[in-house]
């Protein structure tokens, strides 16, 4: 293990055939992660200090090159990994270079790919992946993400304090539009950690929003014929959660498949101190078929279908629950990769679609008036992505068209009264077309300059005359059609300034497409501040300047990373009170979305990872955020100083791990948004495991060992977190090779 961590690269393949060096040769790169053996996309490859391209989503790059001398200096760089370089001698017309990168334990990344992968590396990802507990647990370790819990099942990620209205969700590169007006269906609800390869948090190329949270499922692989079956069973005491996962995987030289599924069932959980959180139970199925086929040397076809069905999901922090929540998602991609052309390295054409059907009701609650709130969203679209090398500069151009549909409504049932109906999101269709371009311009041997531009145009149309009429009755006349455009542009610099010091700087200007709640939301009750929210069809697009800088210092036995980011929002969208009667029983009044001038926020994080002794590693991340509107009011969802830490001792085949999370009291709260001060807390988890065989292990852990009653600053209505949870996980894998 020490050797593995200490080395920077491992070269698995070398020169194959022999020809003279004066001719043009092909260099075929295959870059993968040394730990996971999975491809590393986006790695910058260079020859003699000149960048020649970036690896594709399969970690591959093929270039034509005319060597001027027999020895070539090959290099691969990728943020979050230790740089690799090697001197090789050209002896054939094709140079096969297989590189395994070793992760450099950054807790932070900046440009496109998130820190998630690196953070996970800190926890010896191969073992942690074998005993996953939740997506939220992973996301909470990202420096720019906090989790807003409304229920036990999945929380809403807040990206730099921004909720779902300000960023886009994607799963397997398919946009997913949540269908619940109360944020009960963030897209991480539909992803189980066993099927996840990576989470990318992008602040550029974000589909007309300020950011994109992209859940990337692990891909099937092609290789020697092999079939694998995996099974995993977990049990947690705090809510009697049973979790079963099965997976079948097949691979051949030209074909790969994964079929997997997860079933989860949980009762109400108990918070620290014993309080029963009712309702908070749920049932859930998640299933996937994922395939890949090499049709010819140039063409590769891949497809994925993901389904997720949740039932009877209790949302203790809200006045309503989810009766069902269903996702259907598919993506079919055809990849073309010419072998002998230099300017076009890869073209990918995709067609995709997703639909979410959500049904919120309150039949488990004792309320004077019951309600049903069904919501539906659809997305259908296509995307073309071209990776090319023009004048020696790797460039990516992508264009996407998608058609979206959104509708949500509410029916209330008062005793002895006629059922009452109203729209909550009027039926809306939106066509969005976007173009994005990004280049990787090498700056000598120092680093890379990355300019980026993106333009999105959207045509929004409300469909139903009665719903238009009801909205016009409140906000006055407006056109049911709206044309929006949003563009963003920016630059990034990344590179090494000293041998052990890596740094990056990113500056972005962005506009975003407004969310349907902001434009057309109709009496959306927000239980945190107790107001009904109204949309505003005359709202102006929100804009921001975004600055992100990081510096990392890496040595053989440890890494320290510091990051700072800042946002300057213009036409900041916030809701303010208006003088009209509310609708929801108990509501304090009505707020309407308005452009509230400017606002800013600032985030800091400091992370470290150290190998103290052989087999003993420790890591931590410290982060805090603050922000304010131009009128002096604090921004909501700003994280107080929070520290997460882990210590792991792993004398194989045993391991023991202790995790801690602590936060100072949160006093800078946005009372106008319903926030209240939060006390500080300290929580400890412990886990021990035994790897019985190479493919089988058992893990036993206790989360919240001291049964602390606490909540995080972002938890909706201060929903208490689960108390002491004793859990056990057993996992096994059977692998069969075939000739």
């Amino acid at each position: 293990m020490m050797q593995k961590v200490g080395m920077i690269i491992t070269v698995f393949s070398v020169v194959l055939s022999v020809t003279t060096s004066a001719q043009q040769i092909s260099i075929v790169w295959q870059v993968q992660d040394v730990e996971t053996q999975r491809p590393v996309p986006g790695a910058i490859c260079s020859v003699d200090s000149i960048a020649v391209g970036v690896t594709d989503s399969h970690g591959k790059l093929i270039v034509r090159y005319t060597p001027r001398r027999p020895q070539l200096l090959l290099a691969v760089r990728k943020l979050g990994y230790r740089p690799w370089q090697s001197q090789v001698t050209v002896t054939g017309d094709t140079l096969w270079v297989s590189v395994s990168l070793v992760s450099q334990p950054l807790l932070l990344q900046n440009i496109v790919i998130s820190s998630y992968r690196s953070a996970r590396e800190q926890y010896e990802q191969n073992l942690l992946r074998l005993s996953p507990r939740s997506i939220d647990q992973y996301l909470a370790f990202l420096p720019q993400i906090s989790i807003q819990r409304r229920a036990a099942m999945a929380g809403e990620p807040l990206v730099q304090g921004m909720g779902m209205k300000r960023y886009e969700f994607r799963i397997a590169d398919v946009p997913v539009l949540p269908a619940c007006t109360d944020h009960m269906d963030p897209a991480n609800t539909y992803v189980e950690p066993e099927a996840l390869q990576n989470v990318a948090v992008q602040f550029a190329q974000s589909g007309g929003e300020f950011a994109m949270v992209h859940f990337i499922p692990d891909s099937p692989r092609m290789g020697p014929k092999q079939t694998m079956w995996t099974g995993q069973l977990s049990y947690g005491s705090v809510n009697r959660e049973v979790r079963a996962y099965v997976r079948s995987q097949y691979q051949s030289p030209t074909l790969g498949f994964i079929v997997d599924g997860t079933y989860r069932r949980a009762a109400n959980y108990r918070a620290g101190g014993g309080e029963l959180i009712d309702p908070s139970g749920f049932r859930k199925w998640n299933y996937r078929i994922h395939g890949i086929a090499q049709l010819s040397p140039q063409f590769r076809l891949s497809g994925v279908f993901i389904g997720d069905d949740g039932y009877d999901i209790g949302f203790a922090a809200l006045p309503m629950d989810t009766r069902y929540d269903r996702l259907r998602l598919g993506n079919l991609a055809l990849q073309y990769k010419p072998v002998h052309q230099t300017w076009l390295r890869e073209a990918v054409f995709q067609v995709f679609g997703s639909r979410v059907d959500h049904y919120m009701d309150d039949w488990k609650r004792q309320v004077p008036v019951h309600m049903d709130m069904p919501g539906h969203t659809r997305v259908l679209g296509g995307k073309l992505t071209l990776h090319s090398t023009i004048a020696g500069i790797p460039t990516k151009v992508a264009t996407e068209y998608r058609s979206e549909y959104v509708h949500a409504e509410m029916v209330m049932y008062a005793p002895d009264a006629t059922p009452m109906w109203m729209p909550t999101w009027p039926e809306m269709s939106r066509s969005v077309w976007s173009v994005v371009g990004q280049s990787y311009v090498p700056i000598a041997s120092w680093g890379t300059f990355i300019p980026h531009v993106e333009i999105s145009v959207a045509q929004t149309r409300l469909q139903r005359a009665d719903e238009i009429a009801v909205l016009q009755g409140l906000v006055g006349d407006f056109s049911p059609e709206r044309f929006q455009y949003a563009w963003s542009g920016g630059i990034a610099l990344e590179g090494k300034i000293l041998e052990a010091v890596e740094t990056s700087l990113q500056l972005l200007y962005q506009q975003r497409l407004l969310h349907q709640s902001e434009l057309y939301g109709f009496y959306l009750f927000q239980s945190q501040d107790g107001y009904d929210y109204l949309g505003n069809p005359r709202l102006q697009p929100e804009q921001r300047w975004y600055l992100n800088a990081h510096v990392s210092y890496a040595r053989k036995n440890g890494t320290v990373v510091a990051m700072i980011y800042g946002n300057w929002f213009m036409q900041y969208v916030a809701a303010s009170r208006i003088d009209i009667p509310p609708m929801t029983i108990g509501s304090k009044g009505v707020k309407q979305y308005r452009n509230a001038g400017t606002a800013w926020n600032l985030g800091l994080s400091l992370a470290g990872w150290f190998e103290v002794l052989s087999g003993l590693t420790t890591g931590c991340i410290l982060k805090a955020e603050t922000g304010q509107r131009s009128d002096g009011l604090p921004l909501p969802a700003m994280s107080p100083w929070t520290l997460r830490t882990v210590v792991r001792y792993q004398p194989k085949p045993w391991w023991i791990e202790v995790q801690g999370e602590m936060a100072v009291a949160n006093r800078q709260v946005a009372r106008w948004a319903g926030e209240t001060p939060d006390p500080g807390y300290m929580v400890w988890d412990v886990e021990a495991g035994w790897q019985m065989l190479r493919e089988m292990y058992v893990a036993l852990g206790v989360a919240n060992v001291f049964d602390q009653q606490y909540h995080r600053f972002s938890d909706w209505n201060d929903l208490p977190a689960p108390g002491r949870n004793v859990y056990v996980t057993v996992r096994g894998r059977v692998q069969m090779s075939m000739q």
Partner: protein
Amino acid sequence: MKYTIFLLAIFVLLIQSGCETSNPTTPDDQNDQGQSFSLVVARQQTAWGEVAIYAHDTLRAGYAELLITVKHNGQYVQVSNLQFEPEMAMQGGMSHSTPIDTLFWDAQLQGYQVHLVWVMATYSPGGDKMGDWTVHLTGTIGQDTLDLTLPIEVYYAERVKAFISALDSAKIIAALHISNPEVGLNDFDLFVYRKVMHRFEPVTDLSIEIEPEMPSMGHGSPNNQNPVHIRKGRYQGKVNFTMTGDWVIHTAFYRDGVHIGKVDFPVTF
């Protein structure tokens, strides 16, 4: 061959029926609000033809639109000096009329449109008979005389309210009319009359304030427009229904700034 004859016969029938339906004088034609006079509420044969009264729907207490057709020797005709006099003979022996907003000849429908307010129903909500409505029609058609009394049944609806004016103790009748309530802003008419003996006179000098409420939810709605007087006791305003269901429109009446009374109109859709 016999199929050809059969098809030909059907074709001829269709042509004939097409000719009949092209007659512009059918009461099934729609009025200017898009509603059809499709229900016969009274009909009587005479020596020279037929008199019929049509309505859009079952007659209920409150505002109504009627179409009166007079067929004389097979032709729809106008009536000279037409008088239309509704009368309620109540169970207790008293009688009264009901206010008529307008009466006019509709050339397109070949009949007389009457817009009026039925101030009470034939039956109570419990089904007890409260009296008998009749319509007395008089006039002349050439050499012939029209003098008919037609019975009319009016069913209960909570669209007409009465109160005693705090200023002069007059009995005021108010009737709410929303043609087809739906979510959003709705135009509405409010008819206000003062009872004088057995007749009703328009009240034209009131200020009226409305406040819609959904009692089961305890909320109202914004952006309503109080009704203002248009003509002959008819006031027009806008009411905003933010959802379907059971609404109540609280209506307050003022004369010269003095509150003279209030009524509540339930609206369900």
